[in-house]
């Protein structure tokens, strides 16, 4: 078992600066310490999984990075530069897109309308320019090899769960984004659709994007992730290389891992 703390000894694939890096992030809600001195990084062209039990701080970490929660301590670096993100718009400007678990799609709008929601192409009269939007949507979905949607002019309400996830991911990558964070993308999907989405996730990394994947499902993670960051009780446990570790090791880290950065903390029982 090879394991290396992310911040000091970079993993085996480390050749470039991370596309996105969070250093020493702490966040409390009242007296509850949700995150304590957490590090996280994801590089271009890799899928970095973020795992942990319920309450480990995965979602909080993502929301801190995306600027939805302000950080108590710590900093976020994008391509090695320190950045401050105060909301989804700042994140989008830096090419960081988050696909949340509930997808945030409008059921009553069609695929093209959802892909361009809030960023519609228009002329000086604020008239929508449908033709280029439709063409670009088709192109984007094609490049991701999403081929199961029979018409991009159908309402999102009529799509299956996997297709909706594809639309949400397509929307995230259409805007020259460099980092895509996916929150539980396969949680509500059947077997075949999960497979489709996992293939899509891998394709994103192949296209050179940095992909952060939050998931509960170790089977999914071992299928697509390059590296795995484990959080426990709001602290870093370890970063594993998928090729050199086993599911048992990761499960052990999730349930009983010892935080790496705080010396002397005894292993507590999980809730």
């Amino acid at each position: 078992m090879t394991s290396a703390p992310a911040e000091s000894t970079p993993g085996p694939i480390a050749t470039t600066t991370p596309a996105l890096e969070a250093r020493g992030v702490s966040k409390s809600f009242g007296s509850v310490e949700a995150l304590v001195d957490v590090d996280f990084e994801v590089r271009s062209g890799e899928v970095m999984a973020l795992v942990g039990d319920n309450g480990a701080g995965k979602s909080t970490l993502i929301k801190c990075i995306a600027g939805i929660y302000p950080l108590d301590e710590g900093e976020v670096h994008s391509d090695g530069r320190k950045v401050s993100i105060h909301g989804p718009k700042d994140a989008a400007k830096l090419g960081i897109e988050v696909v949340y678990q509930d997808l945030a799609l409008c059921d009553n709008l069609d695929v093209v309308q959802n892909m361009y929601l809030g960023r519609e192409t228009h002329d000086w009269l604020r008239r929508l320019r449908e033709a280029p939007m439709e063409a670009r949507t088709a192109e984007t979905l094609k490049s991701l090899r999403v081929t199961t949607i029979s018409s991009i002019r159908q309402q999102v309400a009529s799509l299956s769960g996997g297709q909706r996830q594809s639309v949400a991911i397509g929307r995230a990558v259409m805007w020259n984004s460099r980092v895509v964070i996916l929150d539980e993308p396969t949680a509500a999907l059947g077997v075949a659709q999960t497979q489709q989405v996992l293939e899509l996730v891998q394709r994103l990394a192949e296209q050179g994007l940095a992909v952060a994947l939050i998931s509960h499902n170790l089977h999914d993670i071992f299928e697509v992730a390059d590296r795995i960051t484990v959080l426990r009780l709001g602290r870093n446990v370890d970063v594993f290389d998928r090729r050199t570790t086993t599911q048992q090791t990761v499960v052990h880290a999730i349930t009983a891992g010892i935080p790496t950065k705080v010396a002397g903390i005894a292993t507590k029982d999980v809730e």
Partner: protein
Amino acid sequence: MSAEVAAVDVATPSNSLAAIARRRLDALKAGDVGTLPIVIGLIGIVIFFYSKNGNYLTAGNFTNLMTQMAGVTTIAIGVVFVLLLGEIDLSISYVSGVVGVVVAQLQIPDESWQVKGVVAIGIAVSIGALIGALQGSFVAIIGIPSFVVTLAGLLFWQGVILYAIGDAGVLIIEDTTINNVANYFFSDTHGFVIAGVATGLFAVTSLAGVVSRRRHGIRTDNLILVTAKLVVFTTIIFGAVIWANKERGFPLAFLLVIIFLIFWTWVAERTTFGRHVYAVGGNAEAARRAGINVRRIRIQVFMISGLMAGMGGVIFAARLNSVDFNAGGGTLLLDAISAAVIGGTSLFGGHGRVISALMGSLVIATVANGIDLLGYSSAIKYMVTGLILLAAVTLDTVSRRRLAQSGR
């Protein structure tokens, strides 16, 4: 469920007539009924009353119907926007009354504040829009349910009307510009010119759409279908003009209604603002996360509601050549809201088209007109209209449910 459907190239689904018909049928089965029920219903209503009474479709009755409908349809256009957000505006009828009173006051001869008819209309309608924006702010910024805010508006503006009219009981409108809004009829030639221009505009815009899509290399609409739509449109508008010309001619009030319908359809379906209205009505949280200013959209929509209520108020005042303390009363509120709903705009937000304002008021007006001709009492009229409204809402609810189920 359709994840296993064979890989179809997303860019170019077939646009043959058969393929389009199949897609439409699939959508229908999935619960997306569109305007189909209302068109069938209208044809049924017309055939029924025509078989009972030969006077039903006479030219005289037809022009009457057009002017009668104009006010309600105009107000219902504003209602469509409010319903698209999933909100409601109960104040529209008395806001229209207030605007009528303002118009009447501003034209009273020899008063120091007397202004030209056009200016009076402009000022009065702006006041309607302001009232709408004010009520919308309470909904959007403070977060009070629109039902309550506009219910308060209903009471308040009714009070304002009674206060403003006072002991006079009635304000007579003498200004010809204002009265012409509902009482001017175009000459035969002008009627045909209007129909010709409208047809030309329709043809040009449909053609521009086809050209633009072809230039971007995406599936163009089926040319046969585009032509068929143009033929239907031309038939309806020339038919209406020819029929109206047999009597007093094509009414200005109805031309205004058509202009409103085209303009607001354009706003709803072709501009970013309209797109955002649908988005907020469909999923406000998703719209907010996509960076849409949800509050501003809400305020603007209530402003449109107030504006169109005001326009309707001017049409009503002009039609009677006066405003009395009944302005905005009676069944106006319920007619306007029922028109939008019967026309196919969902009460749950996010679904509907501006044209449903016309379709719905056509249904209400044709039923009312037919029942009057057959000599039945108002009692029957109310009962029938009530049943139609119930049927429309039931259809909406059931089709929404089917649409939601078809996704998984």
